[in-house]
């Protein structure tokens, strides 16, 4: 059982946030039009950058719901998944690309099919290892720093997953 049953994204909160953001832009446009314009351009750039990943997430969600039965997912990434589950979560986190929020919908979908919260937390933290940017990190901080930090990130991701699972179990026991 997850911390919360699959939480349906609240439609209203999204529109409220969008309205608040819009107000920020209006206020900024009046106080400093150059910043507002630059902010808008940067936001557009971000949108262009994540659009292909969103498309990928869309098709992955559709394929997931078409071909993979919730029972199978729960079996491989649920309560009894063991080391296989950890490897999938940590490996998936390291390999996945793009900002974390783009992956929220599909992770929530997996969660609703029985994936443990601990594995989702581990996946999120393992994303801190950015494979394509490792050469840049090595260039700035050296190979030893990059290697040690990456090992600790994986260890930290696993520990956070374990802690989350314990907290989930406590919540379950108290119900």
């Amino acid at each position, binding site marked *: 059982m997850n911390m919360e049953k699959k939480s349906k994204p609240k439609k209203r909160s999204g529109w409220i946030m969008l309205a608040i953001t819009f107000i920020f832009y209006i206020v900024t446009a009046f106080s400093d039009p150059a910043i507002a314009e630059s902010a808008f351009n940067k936001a557009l750039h971000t949108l262009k950058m994540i659009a292909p990943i969103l498309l990928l997430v869309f098709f992955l969600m559709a394929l997931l719901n078409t071909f993979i039965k919730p029972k199978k997912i729960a079996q491989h990434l649920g309560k009894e998944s063991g080391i296989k589950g950890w490897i999938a979560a940590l490996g998936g986190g390291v390999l996945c690309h793009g900002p974390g929020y783009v992956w929220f919908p599909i992770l929530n979908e997996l969660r609703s099919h029985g994936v443990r919260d601990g594995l989702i937390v581990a996946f999120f933290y393992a994303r801190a290892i950015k494979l394509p940017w490792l050469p840049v990190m090595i260039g700035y901080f050296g190979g*030893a720093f990059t290697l040690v930090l990456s090992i600790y990130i994986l260890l930290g991701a696993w520990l956070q997953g374990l802690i989350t699972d314990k907290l989930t179990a406590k919540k379950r026991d108290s119900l």
Partner: protein
Amino acid sequence: MTSLPERLKQALVSAFKSLYTIMPMLFAIIGLIGLFQAAVTPQMLYSLFSGSPLQDTVIGTLIGGVSVGQPFLSYIIGGELLKEGVSLYAVSAFILAWVSIGFIQLPMEWAIFGRRFTLVRNLLSFIFALLIACATTVTLSLLL
């Protein structure tokens, strides 16, 4: 039992509905990220560090947590911070928090995963950014 094309159609509709539901929040977050990137300069970030390693590690985690952008930006800023004399503890915490904590994305995470999951995940990320920064720096000082 429903046929494969029918299942695929239903799955596509369901995926579209899921993404459509989060679109307003997604646009809001992208808008906020744009505002942050345009309004907050690296110089502003440098000025927030105090010189005390312990305090700077917490400050580094907080600044990394609110900052957004491509990871390489955190390496560039982190490299500059090191040159300015900020400790490796603080710089490690900063670059780690940059990619693992998302204060700006909190409303979206909250709306999708719920309050408890979001709080636990971000709190753990914050604590582990501090712990891993310390562990990395201590390990390197022992190794090198």
